[in-house]
């Protein structure tokens, strides 16, 4: 699966968590721009993990600050 398709699937998953309907770009930050709190992060990460059948450990999550980094991480984890 290429980056574009992965990004499209993640974009669909992010919608229910994007309460303020912030326009999503690779630079959109989860904490600062989307204002995700820890509970939202948990639910959102679980949705992504289920969609792609992967694990994003908390150690890996710590390295992911923006949308682009998340897409790259998922592409990499999918192998």
């Amino acid at each position, binding site marked *: 699966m290429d980056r574009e398709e992965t990004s499209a699937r993640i974009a669909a998953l992010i919608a229910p968590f994007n309460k303020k309907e912030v326009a999503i770009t690779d630079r959109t930050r989860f904490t600062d721009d989307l204002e995700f*709190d820890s509970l939202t992060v*948990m639910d959102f990460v*679980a949705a992504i993990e289920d969609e792609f059948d992967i*694990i994003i450990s*908390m150690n890996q999550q710590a390295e992911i600050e923006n949308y682009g980094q998340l897409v790259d991480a998922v592409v990499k984890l999918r192998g």
Partner: protein
Amino acid sequence: MLSDNMTVSHTDLFSKFDPLIEMRRNLLDSGVEDPFGLVMERVLSPTVAMCNGRETILLGTYNYMGMTFDPDVIAAGKQALDDFGSGTTGSRVLNGTYAGHRAVEQALCEFYAMDHAMVFSTGYQANLGIISTIAGKGDYIVLDIDSHASIWDGCKMGDAEVVPFKHNDIEAMEKRLRRIPDGAGKLVVLEGVYSMLGDIAPLKDMIAVARKYGAMVLVDEAHSMGFIGPNGRGVAEDQGCLDQVDFVIGTFSKSVGTVGGFCVSNHPKFEIMRLVCRPYVFTASLPPSVVATARTSIRKLMHAGAKRAHLWENSKTLHKGLKDAGFQLGTDSPQSAIIAVIMPDLERGAAMWEALLHEGLYVNLARPPATPANMTLLRCSLCAEHSAAQVQQIIGMFTRAGKAVGILG
């Protein structure tokens, strides 16, 4: 030159705490008594203390079995002070293991019917030490999102991959276990009783799943020891799956009535932990009086069936009384000795806490981020030494305070 540095702009490392300082100031400016600055001037019994000159019923101490004033426990502590002095001044692996440390570990082995017991200086250190040591680089820790701070800190201190799952959600746990790469070591970390809401875990089902995926299992039974299970061994014993648990973590600072932490296990290589577990090695051991009181208390808890029954009665009575009064509680039915009363927000939670204190009742105020789902809670922990009359008195105090603060209609 040192003086050159004087011109460099200075970042106050404390500025990161500004939001909390602000929140605290707002709360105290409203005139409410500081919920995190209470001083107990005198302690009269496991259930009564003097606070601000007022006789106060204690309903937030985790002193579940009321062992803190047990005459045998106190006598053992005094004797140990006379015989062994006030402290060991040393690590367990150097000069800090006295006969009493061995004796309390023996008492734990007998209490849990397990082969090995290792005593730490606090319960926090027991989780910190065991979790950070056994799960290393390339291993995976799968844990409940509502785990205690000491579990999270143990994860953070180690090098394992940390994978949380939704509270008590067996399916969410299984999905994560299934996705762990082949060959990686796996540790599942669960608690018997979750102390914020006082709910228990479906350990039997969760542990069966963990086992299916070849994970080792650690269960923190801090809030169930002495009380839950036929022999007071905890929720795993109660659900008949203690033999499937690799490591039980516990504490002396709740039912046992002193301070200290421990891990018990049947793992054949467990004793090596004493050499490799840094929070065990690089700290001073417990004072002789503490291990003597702990040992005496643990041995008495083996035969405390009547007290356990009375504590269950207290828990059921308080749960029903508060529910009938109209309070929103953390669990639909009483599952442990903790009853959590859910407050609408921090302001009214703090006001309610203060109103209860003025009534002569102490409970724990718990607020985010320690609480699940950002709730403000008044946590009540019952004691086997609370009389039936005290429990009725407590329900009356809650009802009056709830009306005064406007939480009850």
